[in-house]
């Protein structure tokens, strides 16, 4: 909520009331999905209670793929247009995607320990997921190493395009390799109880709503940072720069 309050102060024209409502809506959706995952979904016969981790482990994974796909598309769009808004979207989606993959990497071993008897194994699915996490953490670190904004955007966009090749590798690894990881439960011959599927889809819609909300907030942060960088430039250079800033500021606000 603090984020929304700051955004309101920064850009009064933006609908912060709408964003506050969206935050409440996302919180309710998340609460409903936790309730459904614990109390509504039927208990799985062999794994029992621990299987209920599935209702968050899987949707957070799918949402992370979407975040990184947005990063991929925004990076290509930036290289084609050189419009800063695409770079803002790219870094925002990568940064928001990292905690989603982190959830996948943390909840997976918590599920695996009682079911497999081990916390972790270096099979294709787990390894490629870990590599995905490392790649996007490196993407974010890379951006901190380059000061010049345009060069930073270009280098990180190229890196992001290569990093995105790991997304299909993660997704299809359980088809291409023999892995310890369970096979898909939806499609490709998998079968899931309809009540479990309903809860899974509810949880996925909640994680998608969370992804969208965080993405909007993070994008606004990046737009503000860009405006700040240009303000600093204007302070350093005397002359008609304030007019130049005004143009930049409008561009930043409308993107």
């Amino acid at each position: 909520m603090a984020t929304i309050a700051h955004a309101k102060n920064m850009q009064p024209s933006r609908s912060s009331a709408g964003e506050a409502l969206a935050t409440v809506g996302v919180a309710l959706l998340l609460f409903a999905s936790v309730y459904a995952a614990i109390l509504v979904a039927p208990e799985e016969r062999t794994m029992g209670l621990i299987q209920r981790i599935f209702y968050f482990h899987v949707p957070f994974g799918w949402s992370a793929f979407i975040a990184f796909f947005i990063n991929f598309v925004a990076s290509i769009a930036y290289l084609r247009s050189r419009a800063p808004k695409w770079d803002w979207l790219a870094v925002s989606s990568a940064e928001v995607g990292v905690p989603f993959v982190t959830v996948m990497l943390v909840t997976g071993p918590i599920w695996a320990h009682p079911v497999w008897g081990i916390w972790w194994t270096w099979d294709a699915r787990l390894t490629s997921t870990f590599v995905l996490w490392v790649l996007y953490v490196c993407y974010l670190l890379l951006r901190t190493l380059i000061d010049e904004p345009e060069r930073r955007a270009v280098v990180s966009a190229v890196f992001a395009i290569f990093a995105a090749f790991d997304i299909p590798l993660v997704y299809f690894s359980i088809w291409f390799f023999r892995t310890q990881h369970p096979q898909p439960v939806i499609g490709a011959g998998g079968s899931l109880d309809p009540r479990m599927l309903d809860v899974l889809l509810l949880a996925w819609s909640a994680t998608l709503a969370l992804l969208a909300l965080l993405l909007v907030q993070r994008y606004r942060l990046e737009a503000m940072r860009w405006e700040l960088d240009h303000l600093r430039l204007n302070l350093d250079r005397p002359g008609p720069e304030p007019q130049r800033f005004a143009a930049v500021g409008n561009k930043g606000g409308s993107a």
Partner: protein
Amino acid sequence: MKNLDSLVAAYMAVWAIFFVYHFTIARRLSRLQDELARLKQSLKQ
């Protein structure tokens, strides 16, 4: 109720990760907003 502790740990981890992440966004936004206001003031002067 076998593995209840693991299930609780997993759900706590999910909320902890997102609470921390949201907190970092709010803190960065707050800093940027302060600095932006200060610089805009400097530009006016």
